[in-house]
């Protein structure tokens, strides 16, 4: 699904340059879970942002199902995110002024879907994460786990090709974290592609493909070939 060839990412902060990724080559196959792990500052989130088209690589090439993402314009990247990618963040990132249903419906509304259809699909997505009864609650009235489930529903509502989760359990207690990972695993079983950035070794071990980064380089990669063969 995703192909990265000699991808570099350099952040410039004044005269200081930070090499977040240094020549990353990686293939992420579809229909499974890929876990990206590594220490803080190893480039995990940067990798996720690049394949999710939130950012552009400084050098190298990223392809999604053969399409060169690095060649897309700002508007095309936004449309790509809208149609192909669903993001789940560590801090949930829900819009505080909107209800759970409105938050979930938002990606569809930005696409121009009518409010009625968007709300119907939002209800369906909330049912997948078992939160349909909390649809009219604002984020402040929801627990951390519930907020993350709403965020997953928002990521799912547009039927994306891949779900990209950045430390989805990082702000949750162990039990709630397990619930969230259970939801993500069930999505994989339903045929979704999930790429998850995590510090959690247990999550990384349970993934179909595991990528470990250190100082912007891949130091270990397992599972991709087997999954491709499968």
């Amino acid at each position, binding site marked *: 699904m995703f192909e990265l060839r000699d991808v570099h990412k350099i952040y410039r902060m004044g005269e200081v340059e930070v090499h977040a990724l240094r020549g990353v080559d990686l293939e992420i196959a579809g229909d499974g879970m890929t876990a990206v792990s590594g220490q803080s500052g190893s480039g995990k989130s940067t990798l996720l*942002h690049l394949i*999710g088209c*939130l*950012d552009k690589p400084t050098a190298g090439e990223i392809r999604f199902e053969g399409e060169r993402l690095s060649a897309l314009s*700002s*508007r095309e990247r*936004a*449309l790509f*995110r*809208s*149609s192909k990618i669903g*993001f789940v*963040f560590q*801090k949930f*990132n*829900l*819009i*505080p*002024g*909107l209800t759970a249903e*409105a938050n979930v419906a*938002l*990606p569809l*509304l*930005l*696409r*121009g879907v009518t*409010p009625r259809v*968007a709300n119907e699909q939002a209800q369906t997505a909330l049912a997948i994460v078992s939160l349909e009864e909390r649809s009219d609650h604002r984020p402040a009235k929801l627990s951390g786990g519930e907020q993350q489930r709403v965020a997953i529903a*928002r990521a799912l509502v*547009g039927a994306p090709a891949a779900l990209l989760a950045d430390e989805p359990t990082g702000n949750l207690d162990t039990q709630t974290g397990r619930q969230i990972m259970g939801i993500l695993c069930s999505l994989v079983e339903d045929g979704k592609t999930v790429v998850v950035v995590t510090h959690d070794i247990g999550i990384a071990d349970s993934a179909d493909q595991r990528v470990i980064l250190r100082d912007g380089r891949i130091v270990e990669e397992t599972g991709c070939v087997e999954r491709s063969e499968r």
Partner: protein
Amino acid sequence: MSRNLLRLALSNLRSRRTRSWLTILGVLIGVAAVTALISIGTGIQRAVLSQFEDIGYDIILIVPEGTGAAAGRLGGRLGQSGQTDGGSFSPEGIGQPGGTAAAEQLRDRLAAISSRAAVDVGVLLDDVPTLTEAGALGTQVASVRGASVTGYLRVTTPTQQFLDGFSSVLNGFAIAYGRSFIDLESNEAVLGSRAAERLGASVGSSIDVSGEAFEVVGILESSGANAARDADEGPSGQGLTREISSSGGMATAAFRGLSNTDDAVFVAGERAETLWPSAQSIDVTFARVESGVSVSETLDSIRVSLATQGASGNPVSIQQVADQIQGTLGMVESVLASIAAVALLVGGVGLMNTMYTAVLERRREIGTLKSIGATDGQVLVLFLIDSGLMGFIGGAIGLAIGAALSMLATRVLGPALGVAGFSPVFEVGLVAAVLGFSLVLGALSGSLPALRAARMNPVEALAEE
């Protein structure tokens, strides 16, 4: 899509209710001030112009030179009360020492003016064939004694010719009680409504004018001229006419004074000429121009006639007087509206500040929106709608409050401030301009912050703690 962004913008406004309302308040105050000042200013202009329309733009006034300030005072303070420094008319005020001193000063000034040769109306009509009719109206300050009060008052002496052709200048000289002059050889007086009330006189009673006993034969209807006069003299137009030094200015002052019929005592011009042949009076001559004839050419002919007669006077058309008043009022209105516009500008700056703060506070939200597929353009539009809505809401409420304020100012505070007798004018153009300008002001104020939001890097925005 836009409707969806509008919903989102509305939810943003709701979620920051207090700050949104404070920002809206800034715009609202400016809009309310602009609306109130423009509607009141337009109302005053309309009221003044409608007075001129009632009289007719085909009329030319010939005012004795040097009349300006004296004529203004005749119609203004002294004519109103007989007191020194204005204030309400009261019987107690008449005949007080201060009032007497003021009247004496004015009489001295009038002596200098009236000593000049007056216009001979008959000769004027012969000399200027494009005039269809003409009549003189004298005004003097005289000692008047009523049932229980004595003092100096304005005595207006219209000739029968004047009343036949130009009664509209005296608000139609409409009689409320009694009748008009019948016998021009006897001592008959007609009183303005307020003069009658203050003198304690009624139809059939007797008053004493400059030592002559007069029978009150009629009392005029209340003209509302006080309000129109006061509108010129009050806060909005304080001293306007005194600022005008041209001949038009003198005519304006004289005309404004004459149109106040409520506080005057009227004696037939023919009788006044017989009783007080050497009275210190200002005689304003009114002449009507034939329809379709050039007013400016007629003015030239009148000047020639006056020179030939050796008479003192400056002919001015009503159109010139109206243009002058309208121009001056328009200028005052523009200055006031400009001051109010500064308040509106401050509101816009406040709005911009709020939007910049909102962009900074909502960085993570902007990053989230971009991560779920919002384009830069959608983020831009979202923030523009946000600021435009605040501007529009401020404009709409400000318009309503401005309208209420102008109504309140004219109906409740107006009489106290001396600006009554007219209604504020709300033209469709004003309403549309105010609402449109508020929307544009909001959007413009929000444009730079919105651009900043749209250009924000989503990764950096999401990294915001």
